[in-house]
């Protein structure tokens, strides 16, 4: 299978001014040194915490940002020197609902972008209804998009990016801010694209989404790839772990520190859920240490203790730290 996207030692440094007058400049290394290949027809996920450099990477691949150093080729074209060729072969969306013309209908938005992608008007006439149908906006296409829901706008973005039928797609957090049903609908569209053999680079913060969709996943942290494998193998990497989850009440950071200091405890995280808290502990000794943990929580209310198999999220947490 041939390579659709080839990234070599890509690096991007931003200069941001730190004072009001902009005299003092600070350098921010957003992407430090990133290399990976994506095969034709592959769905590749890029995961990483906020600020890890995902969007910056996507922008460089989409010709919107010039790399500080390193190279990337898309369908064999260099993203800097053959930007025009690259643009013809790719489609991209940055999550969220901006980037559409609010005063135009959904259909007219697509018409305008069709003209930007030099789609022949008679071709656009056939393509636009097809795409409207594909993203499930049929019947609403003549309404101005200022009345669209967030999910509708994000689906319209997908239609927009498919106008010129690109082989390669960059989807930066396409499901951000969608309700579970909307996110599921969007995922099913992504799956359809996958079955059409599109090459897709997807970023997301939803681990189950990445697990369900991606052929391979790259985990990026502080601008560097810290793991790159199939979801199965990434999970395999934490097979030695088991995960203890319990519902607790009123736990503070000193307790967490105490837990972290226990033998066989790999990582501890705490998440607030209304009045209660969810305590998640990764350990290679699983159920054996449950009693120790509970002893350490002496005096706190503990409910619903579960020991389960690791998920992609656990693999992710171990990789990026938590």
């Amino acid at each position, binding site marked *: 299978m041939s390579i659709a996207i080839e990234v070599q030692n890509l690096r991007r440094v931003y200069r941001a001014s730190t004072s009001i007058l902009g005299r003092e400049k600070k350098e921010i290394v957003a992407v430090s040194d990133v290399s990976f290949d994506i095969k034709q027809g592959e769905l590749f996920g890029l995961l990483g915490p906020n600020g890890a450099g995902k969007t910056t990477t996507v922008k460089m691949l989409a010709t*919107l940002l010039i790399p500080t150093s390193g190279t990337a080729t898309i369908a064999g074209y260099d993203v800097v020197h053959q930007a025009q060729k690259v643009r013809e072969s790719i489609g991209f969306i940055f999550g969220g609902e901006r980037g559409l*013309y609010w005063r135009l209908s959904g259909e007219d938005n697509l018409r305008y972008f069709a*003209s*930007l992608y030099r789609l*022949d008007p008679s071709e656009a006439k056939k393509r636009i209804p097809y795409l409207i149908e594909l993203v499930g906006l049929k019947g609403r296409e003549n309404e101005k998009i200022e009345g669209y829901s967030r999910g509708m706008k994000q689906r319209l973005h997908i239609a927009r990016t498919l106008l010129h039928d690109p082989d390669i797609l960059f989807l930066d957090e396409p499901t951000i801010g969608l309700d579970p049903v909307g996110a599921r609908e969007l995922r099913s569209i992504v799956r359809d694209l996958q079955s059409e053999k599109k090459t897709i680079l997807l970023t997301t913060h939803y681990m189950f989404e990445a697990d369900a969709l991606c052929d391979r996943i790259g985990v990026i942290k502080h601008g560097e790839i810290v793991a790159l494998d199939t979801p199965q193998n990434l999970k395999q990497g934490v097979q030695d772990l088991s995960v203890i989850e319990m519902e607790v009440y009123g736990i503070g950071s000193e307790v967490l520190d105490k837990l972290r200091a226990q033998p066989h405890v790999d990582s501890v995280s705490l998440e607030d859920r209304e009045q209660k808290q969810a305590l998640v502990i990764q350990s290679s000794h699983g159920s054996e240490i449950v009693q120790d943990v509970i002893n350490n929580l002496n005096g706190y209310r503990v409910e619903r203790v579960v020991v389960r198999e690791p998920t992609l999220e656990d693999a992710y947490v171990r990789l990026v730290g938590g």
Partner: protein
Amino acid sequence: MQRTTTQTGLLYTIISNLRMFYEGSRLSYIALFHWLRPSTYLASKIIMPLNQILFFTFLGEFSGQNTRDFYVIGNAVQMAAISGIYGVTMSIGGDRWAGTLPYLFGAPSSRLVMFLGRAFFHILDGAVGVIFGLVLGVLVLGLDLSQADPLLLLLAIIAATISSSGLGLLLGSVSLVTVNVWFFNNTLYFLLLLFSGANIARDDMPAWMVAVGDILPLTRSIEAARRVAAGGSFDDISGLLTVEVLLGLFYASFGFTFFRWIEFQARRRGTIDRM
């Protein structure tokens, strides 16, 4: 045989490109021109011109410097600047507010076509505005156009809208990077009122004011419109209008260069979605 196919192929390409240009221009006009609600649109086409024409005509007449028709024609042609400056600026700067710049700059389309397309409908719309202004002048203020060749008048009007839209394209590009678009727009509109000869006869201006008027749009088309109204022929205005259109093209190409520079800077500095 080969030749005919390439010829039809070429014709087809030209037609489909024209259709794309038209479609893109029309949609960008609707998408980005905020005044395009029936009420605001009519206000900009009737109430604003009427206000301005009445105001300056009475003011001018009161001072007794020039004839009533002088002011009516000057201010009617000046209406071209409403579309040319305000309309075109909105059409270029509007993408900043819509958040569509990444998708524009990431598209493979010709930037020149995209850029000029943003002005196209405002050129037509500006001409409509000037015609409205002249009609108001005839109806309300008794403007006398009996000597005027309508076709020549139309030429002068189109030249006025082309040149002011050219300046609008430059201001529109500037609006992609400045905070206060309206300050620039209002300043230029005001400068045009003063220096273009709409309200002060250029013969009465000091030399430096004449010089400023020489490099502004509208100056020559206003003069041409007055000559046409006085019964002038094509030869009387062709020189003026040629320079007027060239001036518009100069501003437009300056604007385009600036637009490309902004695009390049945005890619270099990573400001595409922070503009």
